[in-house]
């Protein structure tokens, strides 16, 4: 074989090797939508009731990226207590609803449990459980982007101590996009 043919074969091999290279973006890109937060102020006397609500907009999630959005999925909702001047042993009972659908039930729950951000799916907190109907509502709302905003209502009763704290509710979602 002449050196000309040999070199052509050798370098054709290298070129084929390179062209067999990469396939990009075979799977959707997953974007974590920044947590959508709202904070509610709660103040209540011992055994007193409290009720407040906040509206979380979800319509801007689809503007998170310029890529084609395949779907948006709800995956978590969290509670976090800050600016807490309540008694250290303060407890409360109540529930959280989303557009009237029951999402979370709380029975004599220690307020201090929420000094760090807690998921509604947390199974380690006594007297704390989520409700399927509220989760299904959130899943569908984010999937269909309807309604464009979600009213979250918090209502409950204080235990034997006064309650004074800010409750931050954060909604987490994932956006599946096709680059």
């Amino acid at each position, binding site marked *: 074989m002449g*050196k000309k043919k040999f070199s052509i074969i050798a370098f054709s091999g290298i*070129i084929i090797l390179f062209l067999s290279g990469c396939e990009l973006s075979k799977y959707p890109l*997953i974007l974590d939508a920044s947590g959508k937060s709202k904070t509610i102020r709660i103040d209540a006397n011992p055994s007193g009731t409290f009720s407040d609500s906040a509206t979380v907009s979800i319509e801007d999630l689809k503007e998170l990226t310029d890529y084609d959005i395949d779907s948006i999925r709800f995956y978590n909702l969290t509670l976090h207590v800050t600016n807490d001047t309540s008694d250290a042993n303060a407890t409360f009972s109540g529930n959280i609803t989303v557009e009237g659908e029951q999402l979370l039930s709380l029975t004599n729950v220690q307020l201090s449990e929420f000094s760090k951000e807690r998921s509604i799916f947390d199974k380690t907190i006594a007297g704390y459980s989520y409700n399927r109907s509220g989760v299904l509502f959130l899943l569908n709302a984010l999937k269909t982007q309807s309604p464009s905003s979600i009213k979250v209502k918090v209502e409950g009763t204080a235990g034997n101590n006064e309650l004074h704290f800010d409750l931050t509710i954060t909604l987490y979602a994932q956006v599946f996009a096709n680059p």
Partner: protein
Amino acid sequence: MQKNFFKQQLLLIISLLCMSLIIVIRTHAQNPFEDAVKQLNSDNAKGYLQPWVTAFGTNLNSGFYHSADISNLGLTVRLDIIGMGTFIGDKQKKYKTKNPFDGTDVETATIFGEMGTVVSPDSLVLYQFQNGQVKTSFIPFVVPQLTIGDLYGTQGVIRYVQTPEINNVPEASVFGIGVRHNVSRYIPAVPVDLSAGFLYQHLKIGELFDATTFMIGAQVSKSFALLTLYGGLQYESISMDIGYEYKGSIPGYTPPSTKITLNVEGESQLRGTVGFNLSFFPVHLFADINIGSAIAASGGIGFGF
């Protein structure tokens, strides 16, 4: 005849250079790649990207030598166009991270993996880790290398390539400098050529990635007319700084700053190399296989004497 041969070689070199540009663009500069990184906190970014960093280090530390024969005093000027590629195995397609719901260990896809693992706190809600974004079993790269010598049995090596920013594709550049020294001159009775050397390189891709690689090793070769068989052992490392604006969110995780800067160390490795060089003066053809914690191949064409 000779004129046509060189014309064809020139066309092949131009093709290779064009391809190296395309490869850099396709592999490193797509927005989905950068967007995927920006969604990761620093712990996940390390696991997600480490195989990519290691593959880059393995590539860059390939093709340094094609013979251990260095004269004590003489003129060597040789330009090599080196194509290199690292094979991506199953091990490079997964890493361990934490379940965002309960903190347990989860194995999910790296940048080279398949779909991200799905975890669920119950039967209703699903969380999916980032999907793999580069599907390949082979990461290629091309770099030119200029060798100049020989002075007191020593050769200097320079590598340099730069691609400009095109349509939001970040610029990329590689600069490398190395030295090789003839060891045979100290032990003349040895029937093979021996040399030792090191290579330092700096790679920059856009604003996100900034890497340095280092290798030190010993080489051996034996020539038979046009054919030179060569081999060697080398120790090598890569360190990549990655800086980006964190755009993700994880429940319970608040980054100290959205500006994340982290350092990813590739897997340091001891590598063995075997290969051959064919000299059709002044054209040289070479190819070798490299086996360490990663497997790589390199090959190319050189011009010079």
